[in-house]
């Protein structure tokens, strides 16, 4: 642009630019697929509800002795809960990436952050050994999830279908390999949680997770995998997620904390994703 171009802009030219900008803005707004964004938001809300409920069930309102002595893992069981949740947040990034036009929904973010305050407050009370009514756990679990679901559904109800939708294809070979590997990783996490020394092996599993998170922008990254998944793989992940969290609760809060239970419990955790990957290869 030449330096004197600003001097040549008259009222008509300025009006034309403003008009072009308004048209571009309206088109971008029309291309936002709010239904997909709402679905991902509801999925995250459900996962958050399960994660916080399980976390508080394991560690909330418990004495230090009860937690550190919970089976053999104690606080290391937090890893078993954290791993599938962090993996999910990365996978969901891939779904959001597929919709082509992303729009941040600030009220959701604000409500979620405010909704996390009760959970953090209960976590602090638990760390300091202060007891509280059991029902507070339910409130803390629902506080971030309910507004997310409500705002997501509200946004989806108002939304028109997007002008352009992206066709979905079957996951390719790299995605299927990653899907099966992810299933085995989650299954192994569940199995190892039942063995002595999980505090140490849990660190190894977290290291694997960090490597996975570091690969987020590559074709082997979790967002790329999430973008490739169809309903079959998402259903499988929801099953694996729920089974792994359930296994963590069983191992930490019941006397069935034996390697046998871990191995037997870990296999169903891995199975849904491995089966989904194999079925994807056959179809």
């Amino acid at each position, binding site marked *: 642009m030449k330096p004197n171009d*600003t001097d040549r802009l008259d009222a008509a030219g300025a009006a034309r630019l403003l008009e072009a900008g308004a*048209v*571009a803005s309206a088109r*971008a707004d029309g291309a936002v697929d709010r239904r997909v964004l709402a679905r991902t938001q509801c999925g995250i809300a459900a996962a958050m509800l399960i994660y916080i409920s399980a976390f508080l069930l394991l560690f909330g309102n418990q004495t230090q002795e009860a937690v550190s002595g919970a089976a053999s893992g104690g606080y290391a069981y937090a890893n078993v809960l954290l791993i599938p949740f962090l993996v999910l947040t990365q996978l969901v990034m891939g779904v959001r990436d597929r919709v082509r*036009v992303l*729009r*941040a929904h600030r009220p959701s973010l604000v409500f979620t952050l405010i909704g996390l305050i009760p959970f953090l407050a209960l976590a602090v009370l638990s760390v300091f050994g202060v007891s509280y009514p059991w029902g507070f756990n339910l409130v803390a679990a629902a506080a971030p999830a309910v507004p997310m679901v409500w705002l997501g559904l509200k946004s989806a109800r108002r939304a028109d279908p997007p002008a352009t939708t992206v066709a979905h294809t079957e996951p390719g070979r790299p995605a299927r390999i990653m899907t099966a590997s992810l299933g085995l990783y989650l299954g192994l996490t569940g199995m190892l949680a039942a063995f002595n020394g999980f505090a140490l092996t849990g660190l190894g599993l977290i290291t694997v997770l960090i490597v996975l998170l570091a690969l987020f922008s590559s074709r082997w990254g979790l967002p790329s995998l999430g973008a490739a998944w169809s309903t079959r793989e998402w259903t499988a992940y929801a099953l694996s997620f729920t089974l792994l969290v359930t296994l963590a609760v069983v191992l930490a809060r019941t006397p069935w904390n034996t390697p046998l239970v871990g191995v037997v419990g870990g296999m169903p955790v891995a199975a849904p994703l491995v089966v989904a990957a194999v079925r994807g290869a056959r179809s």
Partner: protein
Amino acid sequence: MTERRHPRHGLDDALLTPLRFSLMAALGPEAEIDFATLRQLLETDDSALSKAIATLRAAGYVGVRKGYVANRPRTWLRATLSGRAAMRVHVSALQAIAGGLTTSAASESPRQDG
């Protein structure tokens, strides 16, 4: 006493072409749009869009994120904080010029509504 200035002083050279201005308008304050969709929305071609993005990146007005979707590379763009601020000032100046108005130097702050 506030000095009165012609609104053209609020215009930003980087945002003066229709394509670059429309690109920033499409991104808005909180959208992230992939390259192919932007090309479609703005009814332009790869070359012109790449040049516009290069200029806006050089000015620090857009940020670029690269990734993969279903094993295919994809590039997303979003407006940076300085890009949003520049856009607000630029839009105010355009509105003033289009309305035949003059604005005061004091009102040309990034806090203006665009």
